[in-house]
């Protein structure tokens, strides 16, 4: 009874957040489309669904998302293992770098991607194959953008799985594959499913990638909703399409919940710093393969961007960076890069904080599996990922305009919109870890007299600290690169990096283009550096903090030093 109350209390804050900043604005804009003169016009639903081209768009949206998800998992799961379990020089930096595509404006990354797949690109010069107008370009670009989602979500948990279970299975005669299939895979399933559903939702609402690489004949539902809302201004059609999108997303979430229900179980979680080892035998080939994929798929397009930013009118040099320095001297249009970096960091920090608090509370409320109501709540939190940015942006505009929520002209709208996308990441990253915490640990703590809050702080929080670091990094990266919703929120001028890049790109001229590339490079560096900074303290704190179950000496040594020999007792052992 008391637990239910606590859970309800924890869920109340995220629920209120979603009601105010998601459900209400979206309902307002959908209502505006479907209600006219006080009557609902539900006949529009039939009209729109009867349209063959709409069905075609829906079909394409669904299958390309499914295919992109499968491909991303296939390419990124080995990398998740490599980043979770193998120690190699430069790992930390590389893990930050693979997340960079995630924050890049799709216009920028898309054009870099053309250098890989388009005319004169790598595939063209090596094999004479141009993929830039085929559906493969979309799928591969989706892998590029979502690689980090899998590496981080799955890798976060994988690093904490106790390798000795697998070793025990091997010892008992299981082959490498069998041990993986019977021991590791079931343990990983929830986080793989979580990563899959996030990649699916991201690619389902893909906008820029499909526009740039798919050519004009391919459109996702997102493109169509954007057109109907922002260009044609046919709100009824946009409303119906938004509802269709909800149904499609809800169906996916239902499948996700259904596959998960029996999979999640308590796991033996150990300190992530202690599970890594130097690659041996076949692992060296695996590592080499993963590094090769990263080099071609991620580093090459990023390198092309960076190279273009240095490729000035007088050969390679810093011309464009110098030009950036003079930007904004006498124009209201372009902002000095330092200011854009400052705006971006400020928004991203606030958004990440909101996402971490809201998502953390939600994850805490969802930790113990519960009835249908809580599962519905879980799904609700995911919906923003599958909702068009223009729907949210326009919804904000017409709904958050009256006291007590008169935020129309407030800068807070931007981080709020960004946090909507960040929260699902926080929940999906933290939940598998929290649910894997052995219930008996909590019970033991409770028996020893700890209150529920203390149990959470002393047992769950230290275990989840690493996941929280990963989640915070994601939420931060999401908002750093977020462009969709922010661009539809007319606001007093404080452009973020992606907005400033888009402004430069919107103008003709080599200098503008070069500056856009230079600013994109700045964005990449800022993102990588922030992720490095953001994760170091969180993961090292996770390594040094031990759960203060009475009787345990605090800060026991071995786990604090990732390089310490792994023969030292892990936290799990200390706890028991």
């Amino acid at each position: 009874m008391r637990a239910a109350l606590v859970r309800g209390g924890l869920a109340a804050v995220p629920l209120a957040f979603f009601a105010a900043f998601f459900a209400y604005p979206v309902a307002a804009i959908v209502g505006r489309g479907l209600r006219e003169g006080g009557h609902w016009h539900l006949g529009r639903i039939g009209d729109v669904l009867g349209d063959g081209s709409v069905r075609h768009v829906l079909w394409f949206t669904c299958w390309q998302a499914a295919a992109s998800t499968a491909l991303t998992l296939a390419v990124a799961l080995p990398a998740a293992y490599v980043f979770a379990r193998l120690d190699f020089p430069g790992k930390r930096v590389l893990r930050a770098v693979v997340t960079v595509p995630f924050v890049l404006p799709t216009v920028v990354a898309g054009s870099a991607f053309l250098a890989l797949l388009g005319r004169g690109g790598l595939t063209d010069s090596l094999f004479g194959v141009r993929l830039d107008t085929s559906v493969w370009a979309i799928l591969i670009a989706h892998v590029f953008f979502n690689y980090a989602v899998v590496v981080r979500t799955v890798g976060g948990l994988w690093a904490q799985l106790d390798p000795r279970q697998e070793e025990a299975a091997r010892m008992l005669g299981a082959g490498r594959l069998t041990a993986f299939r019977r021991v590791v895979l079931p343990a990983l399933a929830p986080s793989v499913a979580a990563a899959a559903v996030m990649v699916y939702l991201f690619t389902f609402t893909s906008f820029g990638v499909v526009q740039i690489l798919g050519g004009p004949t391919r459109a996702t539902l997102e493109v169509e909703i954007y057109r109907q809302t922002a260009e044609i201004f046919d709100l009824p059609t946009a409303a119906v399409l938004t509802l269709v999108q909800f149904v499609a997303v809800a169906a996916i979430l239902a499948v996700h919940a259904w596959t998960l229900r029996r999979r999640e179980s308590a796991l033996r979680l150990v300190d992530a710093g202690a599970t890594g080892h130097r690659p041996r035998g076949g692992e060296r080939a695996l590592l080499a393969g993963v590094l090769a994929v990263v080099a071609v798929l991620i580093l090459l397009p990023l390198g092309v961007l960076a190279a273009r930013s240095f490729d000035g009118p007088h050969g390679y040099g810093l011309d464009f960076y110098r030009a950036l320095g003079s930007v904004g001297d006498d124009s209201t249009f372009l902002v000095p890069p330092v200011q854009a970096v400052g705006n971006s960091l400020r928004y991203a920090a606030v958004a990440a904080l909101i996402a971490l608090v809201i998502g953390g509370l939600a994850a805490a409320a969802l930790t113990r599996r519960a009835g249908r109501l809580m599962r519905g709540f879980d799904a609700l939190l995911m919906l923003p990922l599958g909702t068009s940015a223009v729907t949210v942006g326009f919804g904000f505009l017409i709904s958050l305009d009256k006291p007590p929520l008169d935020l129309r002209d407030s800068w807070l709208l931007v981080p709020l919109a960004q946090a909507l996308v960040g929260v699902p990441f926080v929940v999906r990253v933290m939940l598998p870890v929290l649910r894997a915490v052995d219930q008996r640990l909590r019970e033991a703590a409770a028996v020893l007299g700890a209150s529920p809050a203390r149990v959470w702080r002393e047992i769950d929080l230290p275990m989840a600290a690493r996941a929280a670091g990963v989640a915070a990094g994601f939420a931060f990266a999401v908002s750093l690169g977020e462009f969709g919703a922010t661009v539809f929120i007319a606001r007093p001028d404080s452009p973020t990096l992606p907005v400033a890049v888009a402004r430069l790109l919107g103008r003709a001229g080599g200098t503008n283009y070069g500056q856009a590339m230079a600013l994109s490079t700045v964005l990449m560096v800022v993102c990588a550096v922030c992720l490095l900074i953001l994760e170091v303290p969180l993961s090292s704190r996770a390594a040094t903090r031990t759960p203060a179950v009475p009787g345990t000496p605090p800060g026991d040594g071995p786990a604090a030093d990732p390089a310490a020999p792994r023969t030292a007792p892990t936290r799990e052992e200390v706890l028991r």
Partner: protein
Amino acid sequence: MTSTIRRRAAGALVLAAAAATVLAGCGSGSGSGGASGKPSKTVTVVSHDSFAASKSVLAQFTKETGYTVKVLRGGDAGAAVNQAILTKDDPRGDVFFGVDNTLLSRALDNGLFDPYTAKGLDQVPADVQLDAAKHRVTPIDTGDVCVNYDRGYFSSHHLAPPQTFADLVKPQYKNLLVTENVSTSSPGLAFLLGTIATYGDQHWQTYWKQLKANGVKVVDSWEQAYDSDFSGSAAGRKAGGDRPLTVSYASSPPAEVVGVNPPPAQSPVGVSTGTCFRQIEFAGLLHGAKNPAGGKAFIDFMLSKTFQQDMPLQMYVDPVVKGAKEPAVFTKYGAKIAHPTTLPPATIADRRDDWVKTWNSLVL
């Protein structure tokens, strides 16, 4: 033990309360411009993402009138107009700038603007005053969407660049043109409107069939066409663009030269002057504006020489006021379009949807 937890809980409550106060403060502090009774000293201009002005020019407005300018930008021109319509009962500012002739009817039909006859309107040619009877909107600038060509390509191939719509379907220009999707790009739409204005509602489809047969490539955005596929722009050259013809603006040639040192004798980009469609951008006083006096002053200011002569380099558009001088880079490298095509806004509003749908099935 319990006391620390309580203290923390209390701390969290204080934090939450503080956050709520901040939220509420932001809510009440902004957007309530002139509600307090005394006339507001701020003019709020609502516009699209491309709105730009020199700080010194806006400072001069403040010096002349005592009003400071606040700019709200949101999305492209279409999105900005639609947002203004959605919020017309409680407008977010005093002046809207950036509704063009392709969107004008939508704005006027929705009663977005109050009539105002701007000072200096007598210096604006009659052919751009599309609401001359009621003065709900004031023309501010014009821009022409035209086919651009890569000078280097045509001189090295000893080929005369195309000058008219009819030229584009000739065999010597096969597979040379890249244009934009009319449903996602405003220059793409303007180019389609130019062909409709030229060939009429009867024959434009035939023209586009010929264009398609002649190998026109369609991409989704101007950025993609100009910066990636077009071989004439600096960015397109870097990206290995292989189309020497694209649909862009008459102001692209000077834009290619700005910032290039030393300035070249000619812009690498030329304009096919017989392929242009004129876009006219308007400003209007928003109905229900909190500071109508300030809004009117800003519209007057936008027709002043100071603002008009600042626009070309800020927004790459042409001034509408007679006698406003263009900067040297425009007169030296730009193209003067004597006879651009155009269509009445009401016709565009009526037929646009059908045209776009037909174009989609015909070309894509």
